[in-house]
């Protein structure tokens, strides 16, 4: 954390190499989020750049009480959401019938995961499933687990009632838990 603060101070004083370090340190996180948010491969490079330019532009307003990774994750999620809204793709506004089971909203085709997490096969399966989820589900999951945002902060960021956010989060995780359970059961056989 002290190193992080020093790095931020260097960037704010105009040290470009310090900002290069910031990018290199957090680019994996940003790439991960942008991919999981369902941004098409041809558009991703622009989003990565936009995210880091926003980081550069707003670094002076970063509240040093939180982690830099959390703050950057939020920027990456918000930038992706804005991009999807502009594209009028499957956005948070384009909410399907909430009573529809999540498993029916998700296409059954298996996508090849674009990455491997440090843990393993189950991680790859889980993130592969997250990638296939409707935007509203994956947004709240990414915000809660990667950006470490509270229910309240997520509700504020996505402008939805806290109850709705919790509902998406719980249903999304239940869906993932069921998938995980299937994997474990298969392994037991």
């Amino acid at each position: 954390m002290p190193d992080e603060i020093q790095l931020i101070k260097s960037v704010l004083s105009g040290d470009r190499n310090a900002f290069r370090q910031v990018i290199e340190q957090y680019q994996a996180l940003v790439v991960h989020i942008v991919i999981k948010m369902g941004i098409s491969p041809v558009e991703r490079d622009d989003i990565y750049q936009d995210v880091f330019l926003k980081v550069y532009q707003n670094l002076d307003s970063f509240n040093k009480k939180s982690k830099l990774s959390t703050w950057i994750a939020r920027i990456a999620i918000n930038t992706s959401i804005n991009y999807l809204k502009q594209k009028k793709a499957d956005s948070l506004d384009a909410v399907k019938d909430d009573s529809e089971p999540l498993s029916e909203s998700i296409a059954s085709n298996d996508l090849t995961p674009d990455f491997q997490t440090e843990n393993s096969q189950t991680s790859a399966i889980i993130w592969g499933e997250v990638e296939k989820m409707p935007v509203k589900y994956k947004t709240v999951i990414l915000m809660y687990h990667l950006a470490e945002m509270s229910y309240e902060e997520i509700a504020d960021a996505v402008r939805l009632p806290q109850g709705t956010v919790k509902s998406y989060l719980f249903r999304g995780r239940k869906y993932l838990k069921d998938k995980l359970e299937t994997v474990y059961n298969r392994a037991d056989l």
Partner: protein
Amino acid sequence: MKSEHLTDKQIQEYLDAGKHKDQIIQKHISICEECRRLVEIYSALYRDLAAPVSAAIPIGIADSVLVRIPAYERRAKKTEYMNILLFIGLGVLLLGVTQYFTDLLPVGRDMLNSLVPSLDLQNGISVESGMAAEEFLSKYRLWIMTFGVLGGVYLFDRVILKKRIFTGMFV
């Protein structure tokens, strides 16, 4: 508690609670094997979702970002100048509005006289300049007010809200 099993929602709420876990649910988990199994699966899921990521990173992100920074800084500088101009506009508006309802010239004269008594602004040039200023204000009052209102909205959005609700659409 409850002899029946915990729901998925209860288990997730239990895990989300962090250090402040519900003691009754905790006790149930300690005696119910089925619920404990579900808590373990959910815990594994939470770990996977929060795990550090090593994504396949495209080459040259840092270079492409650093190349764009000078243009970004120029734009920020331009916006800064715009803010200063609009701030001046807001000041002019306030003066215009105040002048509309009350005569500021004697007040200004008194202030200057108290600061620099040697100027003696009671007569001569001060009256002429005062007349010219008054004429200017009455002639361009509408423009000054429009400019000031737009400037006020812009400044409020950028400086107070910092969300660029209005200006983000144009700048």
